[in-house]
């Protein structure tokens, strides 16, 4: 029995990894940043194999509206090679840890022309079959909402007034009703009838009725 179980588990271990031996790369989906700020584009991967010494990371950039992608970063053989001719020269920094399967890069001093798609491709030999993953970068100018002090003041004052009016209305109704009730209690008998009559006067007499469907 035990030998049968051992044999089947070994057979399964042999079959299953053959199909799932693809490297899976993870980056973000979309990143937002302000002009002039820095942003860290993260890239990591999952692989059934141990992290090899020949692990490679490479980043490519495709501007918005363009069909060509250029290579901006490559890590191989334990050394990182950054862009020194393209649009990111002197603005790129490698902040990843290849030993821990992290191939993140840091983009500094963003410009509006950096809008585009960044693709990370990682290879962990012998595990090289995989699909590169892309992250879309959106660069914005500073805070565009232009609601100011006057807007807030007008809204606050009007809503405050409304609240005040409602509170005062209900307070007046409550106080007048209580005064009528206390009058009727202090002088029993006759005054009580007058009090209940007064309360009836509060409901307005029906005017001409419009028939409702």
């Amino acid at each position, binding site marked *: 029995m035990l030998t049968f179980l051992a044999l089947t588990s070994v057979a399964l271990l042999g079959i299953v990894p053959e199909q799932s031996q693809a490297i899976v790369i993870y980056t973000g989906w979309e990143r937002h940043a302000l002009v002039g700020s820095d942003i860290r584009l993260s890239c990591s991967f999952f692989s059934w194999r141990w992290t090899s010494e020949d692990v490679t990371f490479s980043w490519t950039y495709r501007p918005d*509206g363009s069909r060509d992608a250029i290579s901006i970063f490559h890590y191989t053989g334990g050394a990182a090679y950054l862009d020194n001719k393209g649009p990111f020269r002197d603005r790129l920094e490698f902040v990843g840890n290849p030993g821990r399967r992290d191939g993140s890069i840091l983009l500094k001093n963003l410009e509006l022309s950096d809008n585009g798609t960044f693709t990370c491709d990682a290879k962990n030999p012998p595990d090289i079959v995989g699909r590169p993953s892309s992250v879309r970068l959106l660069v914005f*100018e500073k805070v*565009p909402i232009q609601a*100011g002090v006057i*807007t807030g*003041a007008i809204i606050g004052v009007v809503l405050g007034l409304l609240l005040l009016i409602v509170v005062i209305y209900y307070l007046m109704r409550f106080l007048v009703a209580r005064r009528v009730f206390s009058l009727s209690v202090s002088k029993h008998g006759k005054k009580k009838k007058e009090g209940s009559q007064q309360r009836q006067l509060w409901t307005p007499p029906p005017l001409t009725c419009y028939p409702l469907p």
Partner: protein
Amino acid sequence: MLMLAGIVVLHITTIILLLVAAIDNAWWVKDSVSADLWGKWELTNSNMWHYTNLKDYPEDYLQAVQATSVLACVFTILALFVFVAQLFTLPKGMRFTFTGILQIIACLCIMTGASIYTAKLHVNESSGGYGHCYILAWISFVLTFILALTYFILRKKKE
């Protein structure tokens, strides 16, 4: 019953139109510019849309329009809740005055806002035209007015 459902549907439609007018970005539209009360989208040479501040608008008038459109939305939503509450608490044969008051305030707010926008902003510009949000603002003015009148005339059914 049908009338009640019709009024509620109309009220919800008005709320949606007011919210779209206040939030969506098309009060003033040109070929490459689309502006509303909060910011402006501009199309640059490299075929990218930039969202920027409204730099050259008269600040106090713009903020007044912002405040009144927000207030119009708030009051008309409040009016819907008050209407539903009054359906249950109002004595029979009475009118829905509180709802009507809130709705007429909302009507006045959106009228003020749209009028200020028409009179004070974009007066000297030669190209471009008003976008769909501006039109929706005026349509919701008409709808809130009709609804306010309805609430002032309507009476709760006497069984």
